[in-house]
């Protein structure tokens, strides 16, 4: 079974600064996706960024980028130029892409990020 670990329950950063959220995972599979989802107080789960395991290049979406270390099973999220609207819970998640998988997500416990003005 897959597990996802987020070791930082809470983090804070000053507006315009850079912050990195950590995530490690455990799996025996080779074909999978990793995600970072954001959950603001509205409860809506919002996809921040996605990484395909077979792609060596780290994914980037505007101010958000990941450091994907497949051998180390590490998947950290870097937020540059932090904005007040980035304040939210951030969840790291794993999805198997094996032929027998159900496409369900396995989530880490989350990191509560606060961006301070």
């Amino acid at each position, binding site marked *: 079974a897959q597990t996802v670990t987020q070791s930082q329950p809470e983090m804070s950063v000053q507006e315009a600064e850079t912050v990195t959220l950590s995530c490690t995972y455990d799996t025996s599979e080779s074909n999978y996706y990793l995600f970072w989802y954001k959950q603001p107080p509205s409860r*809506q789960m919002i996809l921040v960024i*996605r990484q395909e395991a077979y792609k060596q290049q780290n994914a980037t979406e505007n101010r958000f980028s990941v450091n994907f270390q497949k051998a180390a099973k590490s998947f950290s999220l870097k937020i540059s130029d932090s904005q007040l609207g980035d304040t939210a819970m951030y969840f790291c998640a794993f999805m198997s892409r094996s032929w027998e998988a*159900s496409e*369900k*997500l396995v989530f880490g416990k*989350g990191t509560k990020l606060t961006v301070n003005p």
Partner: protein
Amino acid sequence: SAVISQKPSRDICQRGTSLTIQCQVDSQVTMMFWYRQQPGQSLTLIATANQGSEATYESGFVIDKFPISRPNLTFSTLTVSNMSPEDSSIYLCSVSGNTEAFFGQGTRLTVV
């Protein structure tokens, strides 16, 4: 992409009663997922709902407590039965596309 409409968005219920949560997707999907998010916690999968077959429940969740219906490829319901205060949580419906998962806006349930 997929747009998911989930209702109710919130409810306050008496212990011992049941609540049915509805999830409507704007496209046909094979599998729908129901997650529970207890206060301050992460998302935990309750069950996977396939059209035309019994739902598959995760360890710790049983059909008598969380019956699920999946009458067609765009709709599912989750019922929280015989509720207790411990069932107070956010319940989320989800579907998976090829490369990501999409979520409803969640149902915040408070049991008093």
